[in-house]
C-alpha cells in the first residue's frame, strides 16, 4: 500500500470509501443502539400505562391518596405502599450516606494505598451479593436483634431500612471514593499551601470538588433502595397500613408487586399492581430530576468545574 505524501489521508473519501472504512456503519449501528434504549424506555412506559387503564379509569388520581388495598372488594389505593417505599429509602439513605461518605473519605484521603485498595475490593464484593442473601441475613440476624432492642415484631419499616442501608452502602463508598480520587492533586496542594490542615483541605476543598460524583453515588443508591424487592419483603412485615411508628410493619411498592402478581386473578387487581409499577417508575424519574436540579444549582453557586 502506498500513501500519497502530499494529499495523504486528508483526501476526501467517496461515500463508498467511507462506508467501507466503517465510519458510516459504526455511526449507524451505535445510533441504532442509542435509539433502542430510548425506544425501550418509551415502550416500557407505554405498556405500563396501557395495562393499567382499568384502575386509572376507575380511581383516577385518588389511587395515589387512598389507603385501602382490598383485592376481594376491588378497592385499590397506593398510599401505604408509597409511604413504605419512601420511608424505607429515606431512612436507609440517612444511615448509609454519612457512613458511606466517611468511609470513602478515609479510603481516598487518609488510608495507605495498600489498605485502601484491599478494603475497596471487599466493599465492591459486597455490592455483588444477591439481595436475597441480605434478606436472609435480615431475617435470621437483624430481626431477632431488633426484637431484642424493642421493636414489637422485629420486622418493620426500620428493619427494612437497615437492611437497605447495608445494601446500598457499597455503591456510595465505591463511587464516592472514585470521585474523591479524581480530584486533581493541585487542588489539595493549593489548599495546604494556603495553610489549611489536612482535614480542612479534605472537607472544604476536595469533598466540594467531588460533590458531583458523591451526589451521583447517593442517587444511584437511592434508585436501588426504591426498587429493592426481595430483601425488603422478607423483613418489612408486609402490612398495607400506615402506622405512626417506624418500628411497626409496613409494605413497599416493589414488594407488593412481587407478592401479589402471580396470583392476581381479577383484571382490576392486575391493573392495580401494574399502576403501582407505573407509580414507582415516575417516582424514580421525579427523584432523579430533583437530583439533576440539585447538582445544577450547586454548580452555578460554586466553582466552575463540572
Amino acid at each position: 500500500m502506498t500513501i500519497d505524501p502530499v494529499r495523504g489521508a486528508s483526501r476526501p473519501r467517496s461515500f463508498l470509501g467511507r462506508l467501507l472504512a466503517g465510519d458510516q456503519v459504526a455511526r449507524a449501528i451505535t445510533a441504532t443502539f442509542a435509539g433502542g434504549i430510548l425506544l425501550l424506555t418509551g415502550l416500557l412506559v407505554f405498556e405500563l400505562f396501557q395495562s393499567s387503564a382499568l384502575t386509572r379509569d376507575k380511581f383516577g388520581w385518588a389511587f395515589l391518596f387512598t389507603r385501602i388495598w382490598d383485592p376481594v372488594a376491588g378497592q385499590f389505593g397506593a398510599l401505604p405502599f408509597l409511604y413504605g417505599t419512601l420511608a424505607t429509602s429515606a431512612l436507609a439513605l440517612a444511615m448509609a450516606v454519612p457512613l458511606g461518605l466517611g468511609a470513602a473519605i478515609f479510603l481516598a484521603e487518609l488510608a495507605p494505598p495498600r489498605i485502601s485498595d484491599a478494603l475497596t475490593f471487599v466493599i465492591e464484593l459486597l455490592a455483588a451479593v444477591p439481595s436475597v442473601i441480605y434478606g436472609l441475613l435480615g431475617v435470621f440476624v437483624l430481626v431477632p436483634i431488633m426484637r431484642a432492642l424493642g421493636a414489637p415484631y422485629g420486622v418493620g419499616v426500620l428493619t427494612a431500612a437497615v437492611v437497605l442501608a447495608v445494601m446500598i452502602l457499597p455503591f456510595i463508598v465505591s463511587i464516592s471514593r472514585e470521585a474523591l480520587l479524581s480530584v486533581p492533586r493541585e487542588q489539595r496542594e493549593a489548599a495546604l499551601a494556603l495553610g489549611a490542615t489536612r482535614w480542612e483541605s479534605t472537607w472544604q476543598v476536595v469533598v466540594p470538588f467531588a460533590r458531583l460524583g458523591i451526589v451521583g453515588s447517593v442517587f444511584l443508591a437511592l434508585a436501588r433502595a426504591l426498587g429493592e424487592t426481595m430483601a425488603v419483603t422478607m423483613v418489612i412485615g408486609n402490612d398495607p397500613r400506615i402506622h405512626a411508628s417506624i418500628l411497626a410493619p409496613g409494605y413497599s411498592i416493589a414488594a407488593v408487586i412481587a407478592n401479589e402478581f402471580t396470583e392476581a386473578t381479577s383484571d382490576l387487581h392486575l391493573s392495580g399492581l401494574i399502576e403501582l409499577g407505573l407509580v414507582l417508575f415516575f417516582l424514580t424519574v421525579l427523584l432523579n430530576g430533583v437530583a439533576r436540579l440539585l447538582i445544577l444549582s450547586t454548580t452555578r453557586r460554586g466553582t466552575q468545574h463540572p
Partner: protein
Amino acid sequence: MRLALCLFALLVPLSAQTLVNGAGATFPYPIYSKWFDEYHKLHPDAQINYQSIGSGGGIRQLQAGTVDFGATDQPMNEEQLGKSSIKPLHFPTVMGAVVATYNLPGVEAELNFTPEALAGIFLGKIKKWNDPLLVKANPGVPLPANDILVVHRSDGSGTTYIWTDYLSKTSPEWKTQVGSGTSVNWPTGLGAKGNEGVAGMVKQSQYSLGYVELIYAIQNKMAYGRVRNAAGQFIQPDLASVTAAAAGAAADMPADFRVSITNAPGKGAYPISSFTWLLIPSQIMDATKKLILTDFLRWMLGPGQKMAEPLSYAPLPKSVVAAELKAVAAIQ
C-alpha cells in the same frame, strides 16, 4: 464437529415427540411434575411440560391460548369462564389442607380451635391466648395471657384462598368484612412470603399463630392444631381426614366439579381442605394432544392416585374418581 453431530442425533428423536404445555398452580407442583415425569416414561412419545407460575397466571395463559391446559387452586368464577373462548373443564386431581400452626412456649398439648376462635383471632378481635373462647375449647391447657401475633401469607396464594374461604363459610363477619381470595385485605397481623416465610416467622416469634399447608407442616414437624368440623368434632388434620372431607362433599358435587369442600359435612372430615384442579379445554383441536390429555387424565385418576400419598397429598375418594372418568369422555 463430532459434538454437533451428537447434539443433532439427540435432537432428532425429540422433535418426533408431541409437546403438551401447561401452566398454573404452585401448590400441586411436586405431584404434577412426578406425574408428568412418570407418564413420559410410560409414553416416551408424549412430553407434558408444566410451569408453576401461579393459579392466576395459569388461568390467564389458558384464556390467551398460550398453553394447552391450566391448573388452579381456586375454581374459576363465572366472569373468568365467560371470558374463555373455549370453555375449560375442571378436573380435581388431589387434595390439600391448611393447618393452624403456632408457637406457644410452655404448652405441649395439641390445641383445639373452634371456627369462631380462628375467625376472631384473624379479625383481630381475640387478642390474647387466654381468651375465654380458646380456654373453653382447650380444658386443662395452661394458656398464657400473652398477645397473639397473627402471621399470614403476603404473597397471593391458593393456601390463603382455602383459609379465607373457610373463615368466610364459618364466620358471617369475616365474609362481609374480608371475604375470600388469593390475596385479601387482612384486618391484622404480619405478612410473610410463602409457606416457608410464615413457618419461619412463627418459629421465630413466641406466641404467634399462622397458617401453612398441611404438607409443609408435616415435613417440617411443626405444631398444628385440631379444628372443629361441621359435625362438631375436633379433627386432627392428616391425609385420611382430608379425603374424608372430599367424600363428605362428594354427595352434592356439581357436575363441573367447581366446589369448595371447606367446612364439609361428615364425621371425621377435616374442615380446611380443598381440591386442586387441572383446567382442560372442553374442545381440543389437535387430535394428538387431545389423545394425550385424555389418556393422561385416565391414568392420573387410576395408577396416578397411588403416587399422591408418598408426597403427602390426599388422594381423591372413589366417588369423585368415578364422576371424573365420565367427564373425561366428554372432552371433544
